[in-house]
């Protein structure tokens, strides 16, 4: 089996994943029908998390923004979402949008609902997103984030070496090569569980998501 999963394989990832605390989520691609999921998820996002995502305060999402974020073409723009298995509500989303001037490069953004932060959801989403990006010919991720957003920085650093390109106005811009390997262990296991068992994701922290261990 190739270390890079195909879209078909990813779609099959709608199987449950158990997080370290026993809660279960499903990971899948986002679609235009996820509009309600996005809006309800946004309502549950704290002002701080909204600010981290958009770098400005966002009291509500405009119609245009909702369309932009849900109507993804899965080529230049991909969204991978995590859904709480119990409630069916969205708990996180990672997306890339290709830089049209540098087609091998895309900007990445990750959001996880506050209650679900620090439990490994973001790391899982980024790993799956990386695989999708590679599949679509994207080799470099860029990200603009608040300079004090250590969660995002840690999450990306776990994926591979991160280079700081610019720092200004309280933000930091980074660039990184999307590793060809490295996300494989986690994904392989994810794919395996699609057919068999659940997996346990260690809670956030410093551990690499690659150390996912089968649940006893």
């Amino acid at each position: 089996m190739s270390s890079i999963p195909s879209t078909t394989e990813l779609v099959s990832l709608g199987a449950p994943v158990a997080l370290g605390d026993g809660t279960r989520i499903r990971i899948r691609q986002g679609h235009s029908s996820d509009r309600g999921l996005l809006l309800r998820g946004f309502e549950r996002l704290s002002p701080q998390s909204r600010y981290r995502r958009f770098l400005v305060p966002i009291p509500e999402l405009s119609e245009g923004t909702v369309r932009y974020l849900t109507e993804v073409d899965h080529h230049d723009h991909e969204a991978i979402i995590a859904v709480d298995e119990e409630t069916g509500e969205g708990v996180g989303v990672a997306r890339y949008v290709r830089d049209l001037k540098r087609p091998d490069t895309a900007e990445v953004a990750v959001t996880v609902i506050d209650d679900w932060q620090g439990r490994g959801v973001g790391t899982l989403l980024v790993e799956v997103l990386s695989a999708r990006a590679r599949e679509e010919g994207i080799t470099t991720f860029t990200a603009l984030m608040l300079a004090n957003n250590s969660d995002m920085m840690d999450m990306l650093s776990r994926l591979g070496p991160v280079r700081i390109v610019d720092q200004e106005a309280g933000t930091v811009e980074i660039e990184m090569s999307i590793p060809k390997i490295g996300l494989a262990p986690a994904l392989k296991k994810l794919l395996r569980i699609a057919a068999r068992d659940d997996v346990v994701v260690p809670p956030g922290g410093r551990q690499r998501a690659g150390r996912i261990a089968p649940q006893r």
Partner: protein
Amino acid sequence: MSNDPINRMAMTTTAAVGPSSAGVHTPIPERSGLELSTGAETLGAMFLRAGGRDGSALRYKENGDWREISYREFVRSARDVARGLIAVGIEPGQRVSILSDTRPEWTIADAGSLCAGTVVAPIYHTNSPEECEYVLRHSEARAVFCEDESQIAKIEQVRSRCPALQHVIAFRGAGAGSLSIEQLVELGREISDEQVEARVGAVGADSLASLVYTSGTTGPPKACMLTHRNWMEQAHMIEESLDLARHDAPIEFFLFLPLAHVFGRITQMCTLDLGGTLIYWTRDPTRLLEDIQEARPTYFSSVPRVWEKIYTAATSGIAEQPRLKRALFSWSLGVGHRLRERERGGAAPGRVLATEHRIADRLVHRKVRDLFGGRLEMAVTSAAPIAREVLEFFDACGIVLLEVWGMTEMCGAGTLNTEQEMKVGTVGKPGSALEMRVGPDGELLARGPIVFAGYFKNEEATREALREGWLATGDLGSIDAEGFVTITGRKKDIIITSSGKNITPANIENALKQTRWISEAVVYGDNRPYLVALLTLDAEEAPKLAEQLGIPPDVPAMARDERVRAEVQKAVDAVNARFARIEQLKRFAILDREMTQQHGELTPTLKVKRAFVYAQFGDVFDSLYD
């Protein structure tokens, strides 16, 4: 262990000080030369000891006359306030707020509260009722000192939502729901001086002394927990670094900065620790320079905004002068500059330069020094970056203006330029109570006994700020081979105006975006005297506004339309009413389109590129300061 962070405070100690393990760092040298200091370990003990001093503690102007309060009177008053607070049932460690402009009563209320073993949580006198409510509720203040009727009125508006608040104590204008200072003192008659001393004695160096509120990235301000050790170590560090403690005559410090800000408050503490005199302004910003000239202080600290104002006042009109006068002015500055450089290099000026300097001094320098009353020995600028030309101008005129860098989280100063060790363009060397190094991402890290104990009721923010004993300052910088620190940028996305106020743009931006007509708001004001914003009209709402005004629904045309501006102004006014004066938007511009990815203001994932907006619309922002 208690759940109350205040009680827990007493059981923890501040970060241990020792040699750093990695990176460029400056170790903490030996302490020396604090002859004039009370040498106290807590603020309460410092005040009580100061009661035995001769001389004048506070000087202020009332009804046109300058009046003085001796150290004995000052400390007597502080004890009276402390007895009153004990009498009305305020327990050690409980919080007491002060809501007032800078005036002697502030200092007395502060000293009194600290002598009662309480924790002082100051509120900016310019704060809106909502903002006052936040501090009172968050700190669970049991009492608040209010300056006058207008401040009491603010508290009355929110009092029912502040369950812990039991006493409103008025400096003046006490009404039905408040106690006057005199009444408080009267109630304290039954309390003995020994009880006050016992309260002071029970406070340890690691007990909490104050909660100082400072801006966070989003949402409400964060409360820095500052211990008695933080304050005393900081005071001693400044006294030592600036050589204030070995002075022949007690220093006379002009005070106008808000005492709710750590910079003003530490100035107050240093002066009183050394037996100096605090001279208060008359609280009229238009009279600031006149106040200083009359007060003739020997020391003065201020924020860049004020130095820039004085610089502009001193240099304005020069451009319109005849060529000869203009030439004379710039020659004088050049002579002053050369002389100072020689002096700093340890060389004598030489006969020619000395003669030139005498002339230049009489023609120009002395006049500038006279703006400060003619007795100024040293001045400090801090809280925001200052322009090099402003520093060099005062320096050439013989005013020792030292740039200091610091933050609330270190109880005031961190690095200082001093008369002996000064490098323009840097913020000086770390003070003796601080060890500094540069982190892997270029962030300045600091540790030492002046570093705060964390944010009150905010463990997450505390964890982010204090990592393995080091305070992440949020500023990017470098430390040169001689140990001078240069600030190169900021990690935190806050605005620091030239008045030194840290402002979270997100709060007012959020409020603006919640109004009907505004879709995007980018607030600007770093190193500027006030806040401005670039606004965009909400494309979904614009047609309705056009209909209401009877104009075509064409956004670019609407952005230029005075009637649209007037409507937007109404929205801005309503938002401003919820913020303190300094956080309000003074002017704004309306962009004739939405911000987009194509124009570069948004990233592909729709993040707003603030730095790009600031650069792209630099001219627009500049025009809002004309």
